[in-house]
């Protein structure tokens, strides 16, 4: 199925308007944006519907978009049986980002959601074990955000080396 047909099918099944972004010159990948409250339902449909059958969650990415005040979560989907790819997105409010977890639909999403929680701060409702995965447990802040500031030291280890001029004066 073509990407735009998939989007039409999803739109018809979900009953809401889906934002469709596709470049007329064919540059890059087209994608569909579903509202946050329909995220889990859209994913269930993508996995289970007989014309879609997206059994492989290729990647789940989080992108911080401060100018739009959202954090985007992007799911790249693929179907081994029907051989079609699709890009499904949703947006969470940047101040208190909360989304439904899709780890019940694709178990692969468990660790991807943990990573998005760790690096961007998005809370996933219904996740079995949501805790930091990449950074230490007591790390302050969410590093992948665009306005992240690094602390000066971590448990006594300074985060930058003394500059050459300072060292020469010691």
């Amino acid at each position, binding site marked *: 199925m073509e990407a735009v047909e998939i989007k039409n099918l999803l739109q018809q099944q979900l009953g809401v308007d889906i934002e469709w972004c596709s470049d007329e010159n064919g540059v890059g990948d087209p994608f569909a944006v579903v509202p946050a409250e329909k995220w889990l339902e859209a994913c269930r449909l993508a996995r289970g519907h007989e014309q879609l059958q997206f059994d492989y969650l290729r990647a789940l990415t989080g*992108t911080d978009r401060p100018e739009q005040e959202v954090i985007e979560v992007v799911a790249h989907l693929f179907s081994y049986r029907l051989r079609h790819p699709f890009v499904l997105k949703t947006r969470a409010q940047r101040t208190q980002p909360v989304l439904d977890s899709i780890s019940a639909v694709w178990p692969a999403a468990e*660790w991807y959601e943990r990573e998005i929680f760790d690096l961007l701060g998005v809370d996933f409702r219904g996740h079995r074990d949501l805790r930091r*995965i990449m950074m230490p447990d007591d790390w302050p802040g969410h590093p*992948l955000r665009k306005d992240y500031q690094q602390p000066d030291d971590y448990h006594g280890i300074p985060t930058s080396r003394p500059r050459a001029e300072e060292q020469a004066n010691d």
Partner: protein
Amino acid sequence: MTELVRIAENRQELVLNMGPHHPSTHGVLRFLVHTDGEVMSRAVPEVGYLHRGLEKMAESVNWAGYMPFTDRVNYLEAMFTNQVYAMAVERLLGVEVPERAEFLRVIACELNRLANHFITLGCITMDLGAFTPFVYLLRERETINDLIESLCGNRVTHNYMRIGGVAHDVDDDWLRHLEKFLDHFEPLIEEFRALIVGNEILVRRMAPVAVICAEDAVAWGLVGPNLRASGVDWDVRRDLPYSAYPQVEFSVPLGRDGQGDAQSIAGDCYQRFLVRVEEVRQSCRILRQCLQKLPAGDIKAKVPKLIKPPAAECYAAVEGARGEIGCYVVSDGGPKPYRVKWRTSSFSAMSIIEHISPGLMIADLVAVIATLDVIAPETDR
């Protein structure tokens, strides 16, 4: 007799810490093993000990300047990560790579696949106690390191590909060296088989241990040899062709019940091992065909000095030695990437370990980690 029974029933679970420093060579990975004696109830992996923030570093360097960082995403498959990043940016720019460059990319990638499988196969046997095959394969890997060094200047972390093509050309001398290496190495595959592949101890430790069925493999996002060993016939080179792969012939090995040993089941550790051994042979086949078919021409397309792709996003994928490596790039029209995301196979492979660990023994956990071929930089990026 009743005393013995009473002791056996007195279960107490112990949480054993394995790592992040451990004798196995897969990098800094940590497992919290909940075990009662030898049998585990589950093994919880902890990662992040090599998280270097490669995705965030992309936002502070130019598009072309990010290429050396792509080597470090997976230093054993540096050519593949170079290629997938270059492919994603080339798709956004609309640049077509010249044919000679595509063939050179395939040659570099297949050499890298060989070098990677040497380490993987060597580490599998070393973790299970056989040190000799590892050293034999390291010796062959040194020849590949020499070839790659004369190609691009570095033995590991190559930085060979550029957006639009490759960085350096090859001459007839190099091609002759490559052919000599293939002539020398192909008989050694049989020697490796005779040395270790049918070894009773290796087979009993791997077959049938930790069977991952095809549905689980797909649902948990396993890719590459792990997926094919579970019986799912999928290879990005053949099924979503890219680069010069449509012009070469190769077969894709699959795992099957009873292949190699009567007790082996599709999806167990032994099938994952055998699939990789066969892939080594297929890589040599591809390299020979590329040597025949390498056309003359440019090695790099014309791209602007300062690369500024239009504001769009793109996902590109290649079949690396461990499976599908995907690169998702988002451009906002500026000279630096807005977001780069790496989809790596070890991340998914680590996440399935907690699911398959109940009932395995601690010694089996070592076999599972080795045959799933997880390494720390891919998991943590």
